[in-house]
């Protein structure tokens, strides 16, 4: 077996050194009733070529963003990843290292995390950021838990424009905790009645921008209403590239900002692993979940970094920790950081503008299809189409023509008739004029 270096001679010599007659002697503590003498009923070992063939056969069954006109978004976006990102994250020193608990031999990961935290604070307009969460949805749930701790209140208000998976995740985290979730229903006409839902028991209001329908949201008034009532504003961004063009949530008064960071450096990968970005104000630092890299010096006075403030975390505080999170998304955070370093200020803001312009071109073209209208007056790189018949069927019909046309919003809310004819369409720098034409023509055909 190619991954196992011990030879039978080694094994024999080692058993002799241990003083065991055979390997079974080392399993004597396992109850006899649970011993399995034979192999489990699974295939035997295979060579690299055979495994690669079997997996390639599965992969080949999928339509995807590389072989079809592609317009899906809703929290996962097709962006171009520079070749050097993937080359660098596959360096074994990054790929195969553990959490940097021994800082003297982990400065690579630690310095990167410090750079990552700084970039997240800059993008979101906040003061501090952690070293990442699992994804945007679980990060949003952690933000609500944090707001509950900060305010000592237990009632969170969720915008109807929040990604339904995020809303469901928050509701799950709340299910057995002592707190209440007030969820607004998604409203295609843009009504979201958040301010009137805020009262003296509200711990936070959670608003996504751009929202589920693709509309950028002005958070200023909601922030004012939150703060007047002693509540926090949690801003959620599922498309982090939008921050290259849109006002950062921090500048609009957000207290906690959670983003999904997949768009930079990380492939869509059928849903994971992704990277949750989490930023807040310095005054809430000690209530923030997750790992943190902090600057210090070594015994010779050289600048270096360590994991810090771990007295918030489960391995020290156990049942009193701010969160149960341990493993985060280190490698995805690295990919994010490398991609953003390559882009820099100029590249990132240009990339955002290219996305916005591509979306405008697509909206203008799709609007010309008979029976199709664009719901949004404003959007970043994703907008919602209203179709003359249920979008789930339209998307299936488009897929039958080899076109991945968009996300039918009814997939999230099968029972909400108000959403059934809506399809979210995402357009990025990757989207070509040919793809836009293919979607427009495909829509015209399947709607005819």
């Amino acid at each position: 077996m190619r991954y196992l270096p011990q030879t039978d001679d080694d094994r024999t010599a080692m058993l002799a050194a241990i003083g065991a007659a055979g390997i079974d002697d080392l399993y004597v503590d396992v109850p006899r009733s649970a011993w399995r003498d034979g192999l489990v009923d699974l295939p035997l070992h295979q060579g690299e070529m055979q495994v690669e063939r079997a997996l390639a056969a599965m992969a080949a069954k999928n339509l995807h963003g590389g072989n079809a006109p592609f317009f899906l978004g809703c929290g996962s976006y097709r962006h171009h990843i520079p070749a050097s990102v993937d080359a660098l994250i596959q360096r074994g020193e990054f790929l195969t290292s553990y959490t940097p608990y021994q800082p003297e031999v982990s400065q690579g990961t630690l310095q990167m995390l410090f750079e990552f935290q700084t970039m997240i604070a800059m993008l979101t307009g906040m003061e501090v950021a952690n070293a990442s969460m699992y994804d945007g949805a679980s990060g949003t749930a952690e933000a609500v838990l944090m707001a509950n701790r900060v305010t000592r209140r237990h009632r969170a208000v969720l915008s109807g424009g929040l990604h339904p998976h995020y809303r469901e995740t928050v509701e799950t985290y709340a299910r057995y905790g002592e707190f209440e979730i007030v969820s607004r229903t998604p409203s295609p006409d843009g009504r979201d009645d958040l301010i009137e839902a805020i009262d003296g028991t509200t711990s936070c209001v959670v608003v996504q921008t751009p929202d589920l329908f693709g509309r950028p949201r002005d958070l200023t008034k909601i922030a004012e209403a939150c703060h007047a009532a002693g509540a926090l504003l949690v801003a959620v961004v599922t498309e982090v590239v939008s921050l290259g063009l849109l006002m950062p949530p921090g500048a609009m008064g957000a207290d906690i900002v959670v983003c999904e960071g997949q768009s930079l450096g990380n492939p869509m990968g059928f849903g994971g692993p992704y990277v949750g970005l989490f930023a807040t104000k310095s005054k809430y630092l000690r209530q923030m979940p997750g790992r943190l890299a902090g600057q210090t010096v070594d015994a010779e006075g050289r600048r270096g970094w360590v994991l810090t403030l771990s007295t918030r975390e489960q391995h020290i505080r156990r049942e009193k920790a701010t969160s149960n999170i341990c493993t985060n998304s280190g490698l995805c955070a690295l990919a994010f950081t490398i991609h953003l370093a390559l882009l820099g200020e100029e590249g990132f803001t240009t990339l955002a503008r290219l996305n916005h312009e591509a979306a405008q071109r697509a909206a203008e073209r799709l609007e010309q299809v008979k029976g199709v209208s664009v719901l949004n007056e404003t959007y970043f790189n994703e907008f919602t189409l209203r179709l003359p018949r249920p979008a789930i069927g339209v998307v299936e019909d488009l897929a039958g023509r080899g076109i991945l046309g968009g996300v039918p919003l009814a997939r999230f809310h099968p029972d909400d008739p108000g959403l059934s004819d809506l399809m979210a369409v995402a357009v990025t720098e990757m989207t070509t004029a040919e793809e836009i034409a293919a979607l427009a023509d495909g829509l015209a055909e399947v709607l005819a």
Partner: protein
Amino acid sequence: MTTTSGNRGLVMDEPLLFEQDAPGRCGVDLETPEGRPLKLGGLERKGAIGLPGLAEPQVVRHFTRLSQKNYAIDAGFYPLGSCTMKHNPRLNEKAVRMPGFALAHPLQPESTVQGALELIATLAHWLTTLTGMPGVAMSPAAGAHGELAGLMTIRAALTARGDARKKVLVPESAHGTNPATATLCDYAVESIPANERGRIDIEALKEALDQDVAALMLTNPNTCGLFEDEIVEVARLVHDAGAFFYGDGANFNAIVGRVRPGDLGIDAMHINLHKTFSTPHGGGGPGSGPVVLAESLVPFAPLPYVVAGEGGFRMVEHDPSGRSFGRLRAFHGQMGMFVRALAYMMSHGADGLRQVAEDAVLNANYVLARLKGAYHPSFDGPCMHECLFDDRTLKDTGVSTLDLAKALIDEGFHPMTMYFPLVVHGAMLIEPTETESKATLDQFCDTMLALMEKAQAGNAEWFHESPHLAPWRRLDETAAARNPVLTWSPEQGKNAAA
């Protein structure tokens, strides 16, 4: 020795990205925007972000230099107990980058992602077969997330039978995630002591088990590296009390292919794919923590899940029965980790995985046998995949477990897990995994023996100053916590640390 450049041979003194900024410089070539009017409703960004501008070679060099400051399993022996630092095959990396996996979107119509759903279903089949459990929830993002999924499933099952229980029992040797997870599910945590043999104290367990106990969370093999030899009795007691038995599967590597947790009476157990099934740790994640479930818990599992039907595979995202406790994250799970783990499992097969467990246990017992004259094993008898020592033989040397660990760094080894589990004084938990050859283990053991000799000979000062040869000397963690500097700022000069 100091150098003019600050570099030390191949170890480069690498400034932060922000300190290499030149405005206007860029590492990508993008098209020029048309300059269309914005359709953002007046919400455009007003000021600059502050991101640094670097060209591609600078970025490549920066991260290459950073990587060279990391220890890694690719570079050497990484015996971190409880973390299972095993070889990460590159085949797995190649597989996950196949466009059919990497470029598939999680919300595509099911008809277009049959291969992706087949992969999830296949991995689920391997996991349920290896554990002897009928169901598995695939979506949890990491071990602690899996614990949350498992405890919430248990809570949903209890709620469904109208049985509101208030407590979760956790051995004092458990990972910190266990009690933290129980708290997140709004359970009170009650700690169960270990007995003198390093196992759960059955008498204390009996005492604690009452009608208010929802579950026992038990790691097996446990964090002392021992198999819980009374586990069948433990399961019986837990079930007799009407509670569920949660297994923390962090240490599954010791028994994979040899023992099925389902045969031990476990009702739910998460599996860290980034431990037993070799998905890379990546400097702290991402992980993946599927939870295998007993029949009684399957109906309450989190959403979504894959089912096979006549028309192919389907992804169930809405629970018609209303019994699922809900969703734990966006989309379906850590697909990238699923592909890697399945590539690893298929490579090993049923025969290879059993050999993995046996070699891991053999290696740990070999280290135990070689070190036990100089180091004090915390408990008698053979260990499983990791061996545990306390700091008794360092007593009166002035050298601590931490000092010894830092001295190991100078010798080219990553330190073992220190000061965990908490039930052992100055704990040193060594997990070699099946990846290591006898030659590597011998070199490590020789080093450990020499270090103990050196400590006992009275070189406390030298140990306190370790590491001497690492890229960095010992870092001041106290200063970092006292005055947290968590982001770079333009005002902060290059050497204005802490």
